């Protein structure tokens, strides 16, 4: 029982990070129907920006978090303008291949600049203390921080999407791009905002993962990025609460598998789940089935 609870706690903190990344995936997919492969690498860049802020500029945790989010937001807009905007009306495979290209570019440019060595986050940025609420279960304060920050960002995102003008525009563009344009919505700007918000969340996830696991490297974004995509599909792609639920689920299942079965199989589980969900209910947990019209 204690082990189960312990795995649940670990799973929730890992899941929060997946949830933050998959929110960006879901938002971008919802608005331009593109699997943004580069999203996982924006998360990696976020981790590196946080590293530079903390280690070299000696900034505190929250300043670094915010700087990293802003940097990633700008990077997201830049990528969208350079690589995805010219392809807005082309085939989806074309856009997907471009996304892979951007992803490789970010990974290997980071490797060229920062070298492939693994970097370690400073350990004293956040209080590193443990307490045990129930006997046998150990919770690190950092895990609490990660969970609270994720919930806070998630609520902020819900507020932006449902209560502000930008959010309204985003929902309109994702429902029908042409109709939205006719209603006087600036579609290009709305897409840019979506990339900015999604990338900022990925940047936040990058800093949190740096704090949680301590080590970062240029290829760290690849697998979590794919898993976050699995999370987005699991919850129903394009649906924001779905991505959140999917992220937490994947995180929890993954820690359960590495706790009870073998840590070597944990990466396979996410993909097995993906294939299962695609075969059973491709629209995802919260998704609705849409009929194909000819």
């Amino acid at each position, binding site marked *: 029982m204690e082990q189960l609870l312990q795995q649940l706690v670990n799973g929730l903190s890992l899941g929060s990070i997946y949830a933050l990344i998959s929110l960006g995936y879901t938002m971008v997919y919802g608005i331009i129907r593109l699997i943004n492969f580069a999203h996982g690498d924006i998360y990696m860049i976020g981790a590196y920006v946080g590293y530079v802020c903390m280690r070299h500029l000696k900034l505190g945790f929250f300043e670094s978090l915010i700087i990293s989010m802003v940097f990633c937001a700008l990077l997201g807009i830049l990528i969208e303008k350079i690589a995805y905007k010219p392809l807005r009306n082309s085939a989806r495979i*074309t856009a997907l291949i*471009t996304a892979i*290209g951007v992803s*490789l570019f970010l990974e290997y*440019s980071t490797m060229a600049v920062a070298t492939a060595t693994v970097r370690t986050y400073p350990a004293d940025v956040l209080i590193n203390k443990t307490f045990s609420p129930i006997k046998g279960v150990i919770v690190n304060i950092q895990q609490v921080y990660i969970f609270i920050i994720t919930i806070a960002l998630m609520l902020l995102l819900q507020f932006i999407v449902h209560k502000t003008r930008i959010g309204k525009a985003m929902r309109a563009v994702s429902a029908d791009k042409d109709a939205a344009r006719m209603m006087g919505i600036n579609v290009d700007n709305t897409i840019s905002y979506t990339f900015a918000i999604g990338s900022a969340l990925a940047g936040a996830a990058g800093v949190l993962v740096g704090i949680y696991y301590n080590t970062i490297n240029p290829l760290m974004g690849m697998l979590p990025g*794919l898993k976050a995509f699995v999370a987005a599909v699991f919850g129903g792609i394009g649906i924001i609460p779905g991505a959140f639920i999917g992220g937490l689920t994947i995180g929890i299942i993954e820690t359960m598998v590495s706790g009870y079965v073998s840590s070597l199989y944990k*990466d*396979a589980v996410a993909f097995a789940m*993906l294939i299962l969900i695609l075969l059973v209910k491709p629209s995802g947990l919260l998704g609705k089935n849409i009929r*194909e019209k000819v």
Partner: protein
Amino acid sequence: MKDTIKRLLQYTASVVLLYALIQLLIFAGIINEYYQVTLAMICINIILAVSLNLITGFTGQFSLGHAGFMSIGAYTCALMTLRVGGLFSFILGILLGAILAAMVGFIIGMPTLRLKGDYLAIATLGFAEIIRIILLNLDFTGGARGLADIPRYTNWTWLYIFTVICIVVTVNFIKSSHGRVCISIREDEIAAETLGINITRYKVLSFVIGAFFAGIAGALYASYFYYIKPGLFGFLKSIDILVIVVLGGMGSITGSILASIFLAVISTYLQAFAEFRMIIYAVILVIIMIFRPQGLMGTKEFKPEQVEKRIKERNNR
């Protein structure tokens, strides 16, 4: 009829001539050990690219898991030659590897090919990752260390034979009625279905053929480079193959061949700068997608007859 036979003879003669020429250069030492590696890479990449082109370029099914099939062929052949030994085990290993890869392709293809576009890409990627993780965890595959000291049987002759077989089979498949069906699925899936075509069957067919040749390429790879490990057949390898197909043109066999040669030569020269090679790959991908999304050759083929015709026309003028 006479023309067809004449052309067939011409093609056969040029295929044999090319083989003899390069074999001669190898004997003469002009193509040294170093360039022979490039030559092997070109042949293996051609097989991989042509087989992926059949799936992605001609049937229009976007697969990101080609390296997974390659790894099955590679491990089968490596284990065969390591455990049994001898030239016979090498040939058996290639065939067994290819058949095993085709079978896995069938098992993977049956459920996933119902999916479309992006979802299919992610599902194939997921399957390739699962294959990699299984290879990583099995005992007899050597885990993360992989298999070393694989006897080398692959040489220029074998590489050339299998490359030619792969190209000939693929080209003839595309020209057959089955191949035409595959192209119709690429052009418009719904229209093809309304014409009474069992689209899943043909998608799976092209997927299985593609996997078969990817298995052969993997087997040749294992037997040429002495050493394999699961990390070699990851997501990046699949992307490598995809870059070749996209660069050459999705739906052009000659495009894939030219792109294989071009990229193998580039990466030989950029060997010392592995990171820059990947950055250049990435930039090439993005630029081609933005400015020439159909690839260098598009769906066109390079045919010697057309060049001949054009020269004749110019002379007559």
